């Protein structure tokens, strides 16, 4: 038998380990306290004892803020950049500039990844979970790749829904806004027996279009429908089974600027179109406490989606199987797990999207191992771990991590972390040729013909099977001080990434010269045909480097018994280093500064006023600086009935939040203030 240092360590005896303690003893905190795992370290651990930058949105804050969607909820988290492209599409990221198809944030619902491997991102518009049944949202700012796998180099969002035992009531809500947006939601729950309970919900949303986009009128109204259920069964105290099923559908408008693929001049023509998507999500999990010091869980998840747009029809499904064991050893805490994912990704070719090699499926499998132990005395804790995963595109990837926590007192904690994360290339970058927005010839080179210079040349992102995974090495330092009336949290980070996506432009100079000759001879059509057949090719490469540094700061204090204030600030600076001849995928140097003010005022048990002001500079997104003010007044009319009045984006005045015109075909809309009234009833 091969010698293993870990097995030797495990056979030594006698050293005991301190488990986590409770931070808060109020009823709400106790109801939310988890016996097993939270996402940060894949085990029960308070934020105070976690060597990572973690922020938790509680159900109380979600209710008081009046947010009605997951992206809106994430906008409450300092350090998360949330940019609304139009009424339906979002660019969301952490410690990086977000895009429509941003790829470095792993998003999960009750442990099920909803990440799309085609473009390595998330369809935020498909996340139509009812906010009233969310228990909490945990956000890890920074590398979470170790435990949750690849593609979490900048953060992890874990949405945790309520156990069905906590939703055995009938609930309904209806809201109406001055923009004619309507929303209806309802849920019914029941205890089937002492050991089993369930809930069923349905949700409908009708969103009206905004007025203007960057290319004429906006066309971004839409209808969203979803139904879902959750079932929980606890036959014994140490055994539980959970199953969830959800189906959602959306039909929304978007104003897109598609380059013509039939006309010789590939002019970007803005057209309104309807875009539809539907998705089926299923997850089931069995958890067992094998003893007071050991537990295990097995999860099976399935996600199937279909989307239809004029430039792409897509169909995908993936299966996930995850096993995990958590052990309390006399020497520390050991967590390990296995995972397998199969992605079925048949590409339905279109004029804008073709596959080079015909790959229609990928798979990933791997394991993780994490060991936590106190050192020297109870003040220090060390966490070592690694995740090794094999994938179809780049074979084996390893993500090691070392974290050190120092707690000189119960109120203070300082932590230090070093980790290596991996961002797998999406199938799109690896294999697809994607027609993208056309460019005028004069943006590429000078020609003596003014007419030809204005000609819109088609451009093509060419997938490259040689692209490698992005590898990011991060160093983080954090400090927390948590007193009775206030909390302070600071994180500082620096990361260096290699194999960043770049483009090698191949300008068809020969074809342009030939076209010029034809053009000057009056053979306009022949010149156009020649240019149509020879687009600008942007060959995808992974040879760039990116250095990011920044910080997140939070100060939370109870000013009086009625007033709670939270101040936050974050700063991220990005510097790309691109080889000569290549084009970086994002601006060379950019920075994002964010300032947050949140306040909750609860003068009586029945009334609460929630205010959030967010400032974010616009450099990285090519917009004006954003100033966003949301206010929500919640009035509990009776134990069953509640009324809320919400003012959203009150400082907006034809506000553009996203200015990267080449990020996708979708044309961003100008946003305006909105006032909404909501009535909710609970039986």
């Amino acid at each position, binding site marked *: 038998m091969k*010698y293993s*240092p*870990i097995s*030797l*360590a495990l056979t*030594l005896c*006698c*050293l*005991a*380990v*301190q*488990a*986590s*303690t*409770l931070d808060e*003893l*109020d*009823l709400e*905190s*106790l*109801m*939310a*306290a*988890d*016996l*097993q*795992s939270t996402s940060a370290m894949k085990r*029960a651990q308070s934020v105070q004892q976690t060597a990572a930058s973690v922020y938790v949105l509680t159900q109380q804050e979600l209710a008081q803020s009046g947010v009605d969607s997951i992206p809106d909820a994430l906008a409450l988290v300092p350090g998360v950049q949330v940019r609304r492209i139009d009424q339906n599409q979002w660019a969301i990221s952490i410690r990086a500039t977000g895009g429509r198809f941003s790829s470095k944030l792993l998003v999960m619902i009750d442990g099920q990844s909803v990440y799309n491997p085609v473009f390595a991102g998330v369809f935020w518009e498909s996340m139509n979970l009812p906010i009233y049944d969310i228990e909490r949202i945990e956000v890890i700012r920074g590398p979470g790749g170790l435990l949750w796998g690849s593609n979490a180099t900048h953060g992890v969002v874990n949405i945790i829904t309520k*156990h069905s*035992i*906590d939703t055995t009531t009938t609930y309904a809500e209806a809201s109406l806004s001055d923009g004619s947006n309507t929303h209806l939601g309802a849920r019914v729950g029941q*205890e089937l027996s*002492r050991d089993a*309970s369930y809930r069923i919900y349905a949700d409908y949303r009708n969103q009206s279009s905004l007025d203007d986009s960057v290319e004429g009128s906006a066309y971004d109204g839409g209808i969203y429908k979803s139904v879902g259920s959750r079932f*929980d069964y*606890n036959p014994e*105290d*140490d055994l*539980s089974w*959970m199953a969830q099923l959800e189906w959602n559908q959306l039909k929304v408008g978007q104003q897109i600027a598609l380059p013509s693929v039939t006309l010789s001049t590939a002019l970007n023509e803005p057209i309104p179109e309807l875009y539809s998507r539907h998705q089926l999500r299923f997850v089931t999990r069995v*958890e067992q406490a094998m003893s*007071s010091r050991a537990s295990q869980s097995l999860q099976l998840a399935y996600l199937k989606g279909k989307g239809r747009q004029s430039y792409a029809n897509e169909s995908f499904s993936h299966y996930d199987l995850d096993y995990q064991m958590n052990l*309390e050893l006399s*020497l*520390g805490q050991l967590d390990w797990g296995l995972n397998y994912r199969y992605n079925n990704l048949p590409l339905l070719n279109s004029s804008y999207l073709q596959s080079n090699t015909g790959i229609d499926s990928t798979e990933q499998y791997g394991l993780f191992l994490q*060991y936590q*132990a*106190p*050192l*020297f*005395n*109870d003040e*220090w804790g*060390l966490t*070592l771990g690694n995740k090794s995963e094999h994938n179809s595109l780049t074979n084996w990837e390893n993500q090691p991590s070392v974290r050190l926590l120092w707690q000189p007192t119960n109120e203070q904690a300082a932590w230090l972390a070093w980790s290596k994360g991996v961002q797998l290339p999406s199938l799109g970058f690896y294999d697809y040729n994607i027609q993208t927005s056309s460019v005028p010839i004069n943006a590429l080179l000078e020609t003596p013909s003014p007419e030809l210079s204005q000609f819109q040349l088609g451009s093509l992102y060419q997938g490259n099977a040689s692209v490698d995974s992005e590898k990011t090495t991060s160093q983080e330092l954090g400090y927390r001080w948590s007193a009775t009336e206030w909390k302070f949290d600071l994180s500082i980070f620096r990361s260096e990434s290699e194999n960043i996506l770049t483009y090698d432009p191949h300008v068809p100079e020969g074809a342009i010269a030939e076209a010029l000759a034809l053009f000057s001879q009056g053979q306009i059509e022949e010149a156009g045909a020649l240019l149509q057949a020879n687009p600008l090719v942007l060959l995808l490469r992974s040879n760039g480097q990116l250095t990011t540094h920044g910080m997140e700061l939070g100060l939370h204090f109870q000013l009086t018994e009625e007033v709670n204030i939270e101040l936050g600030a974050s700063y991220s600076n990005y510097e790309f280093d691109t080889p000569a001849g290549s084009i970086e995928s994002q601006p060379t140097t950019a920075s994002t500064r964010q300032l947050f003010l949140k306040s909750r005022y609860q003068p009586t048990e029945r009334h609460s006023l929630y205010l959030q002001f967010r400032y974010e500079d616009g450099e990285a997104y090519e917009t004006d600086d954003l100033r966003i003010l949301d206010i929500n007044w919640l009035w509990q009319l009776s134990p069953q009935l509640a009324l809320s009045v919400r003012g959203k984006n009150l400082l907006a005045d034809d506000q553009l939040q996203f200015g990267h015109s080449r990020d996708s075909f979708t044309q961003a809309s100008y946003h305006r203030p909105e006032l909404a009234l909501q009535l909710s009833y609970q039986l």
Partner: protein
Amino acid sequence: MRVVLSPIRFLINCLVLGVVLFSSNAPCQDKGYLIKAGFIYNFARYSSLLDNLSDPHNFTLCSSDSDFAEQAKQLLHQKNIKGRSIVTQVVVPGASELSMCNTLFITQDASEQWQYWLEKKASHTMLIVGESRNFLNQGGHISFFRAGTKVRFEVSPTHLKQSGIKISSKVLRLGRVRGAN
């Protein structure tokens, strides 16, 4: 046969052995016990128990289990209930110390031992909390149970009323309300 370790593997070995050698010795805590102790603290805070206390200085939380008593003591030692310090006490069925208890927590392991006492107990104002499956049927007031990875509780209003104890709706609305059977 000579075994040659790669440099990386050697470093990993040293690191792990270092962790083992310098790992500290600390008492083990059961998160479930801590959460239950927290709940019991709130049950007491939001109940009418304080109206009839004989000891003006202390609130006594008794338990059948010494581990629970120790952890509750560590968790609640700086807390008070309406000015009264919280003290913990380990008791057995029929012990004279039971007369000092304001709240009694009977753990799963001890439920069989306490069953007779619970069914035959004289009516008094002590709040009796347990975690075994049939605890409320046996005469208990509040019983903990697990819902997934969370701790929840169920309440017997009938038994509370028989003992003359009132619990605030702030607590009741969070738990499951059960009849005696």
